């Protein structure tokens, strides 16, 4: 893991933008937007995940819920990524070696893979279960994993601040 100790991370910390964010109220401003965006990612995907588990909003089809809610998750995710990068560059070198930050990235990737598996593999058979009130086990696993992984992303993200 040579690149974790590369001087590039220190260079990033020394960008004028990094100094501007880290030394002013921009940092707490970005952080509060990051928290709201992250809460929106989880808040909007929560209903879809609970529907996949067969626990909530059963009167709506899975396709309707994901069509109307997942764009909110993506929009909030983009906002969280931009604000997150803004905070990351102020302490890039310490973040890349921070175990909580590393866990956060791994959990994010797993959450992304879980979503991709659902949309590209499982979604093809949507006609079989779109309106079913009791969902098949495969969907329950995907919905449960999504909730678990996103909560893990939040926990790891919050833990980052306790280690740096």
């Amino acid at each position, binding site marked *: 893991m040579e690149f974790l100790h590369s001087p590039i991370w220190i260079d990033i910390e020394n960008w004028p933008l990094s100094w501007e964010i880290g030394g002013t109220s921009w940092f707490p401003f970005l952080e509060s937007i990051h928290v709201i965006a992250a809460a929106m990612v989880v808040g909007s995907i929560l209903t879809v995940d609970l529907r996949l588990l067969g626990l909530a909003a059963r009167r709506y089809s899975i396709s309707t819920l994901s069509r*109307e809610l997942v764009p909110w998750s993506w929009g909030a995710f983009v906002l969280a990524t931009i604000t997150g990068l803004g905070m990351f560059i102020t302490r890039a070198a310490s973040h890349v070696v921070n175990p909580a930050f590393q866990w956060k990235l791994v959990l994010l990737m797993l959450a992304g893979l879980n979503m991709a598996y659902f949309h590209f593999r499982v979604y093809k058979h949507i006609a079989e279960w779109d309106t079913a009130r009791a969902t098949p086990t495969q969907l329950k696993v995907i919905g449960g994993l999504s909730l678990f992984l996103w909560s893990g992303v939040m926990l790891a993200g919050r833990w980052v601040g306790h280690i740096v």
Partner: protein
Amino acid sequence: MPAFLTNLGGLIDGSSLQTFALWALREIPGFPPIIQTVHLLGIAVVMGTVVMLDLRILGLAVRSQKISEMIERLLPWTWIALVTNFISGGFFLFARPNRYFNNPIFGWKLSFLIPAILLTLFFHLLSKTQQDYWELNSQRLWAARGIALLSLGLWIMVAMAGRWIAYSEYIYFPAEALLNSLSLPWTA
């Protein structure tokens, strides 16, 4: 901060409630970030319920869902999330009451939170008095839109102010903030 709140802070300071909260935060491994994540998940539920309802009323989200159905399905979860957030937030509040009850940003948080709760309660209770209360005619619908806009702003500001509490110490009490960061690393 109003005097009764700073007095309340003084009342909790030194109580067994404080002893318990401090014990939990200091002695249970990982408790501060875990309980903060529970608090964040509560905020996520607020976003997914009352904020999503506000966005629906404003015509911005989940248009296939009916407003009265959403109120009935989602708002009970808003209340559950708020109760859990009172508990998770309570650990930090009771552990260092003076830190919060003398903190102007915490005062801001309360001045957004209390109207947000009252507005949501008012909106929820009126919806129970009549079938489709907020969709019955155009006046009701416009009133609902006004309330939704206000509610959306208030809930966003509650979350914003909450995150700024930790920074306000550096603005208002720089010397104390430095001392605390040395002795209580979990406060950041």
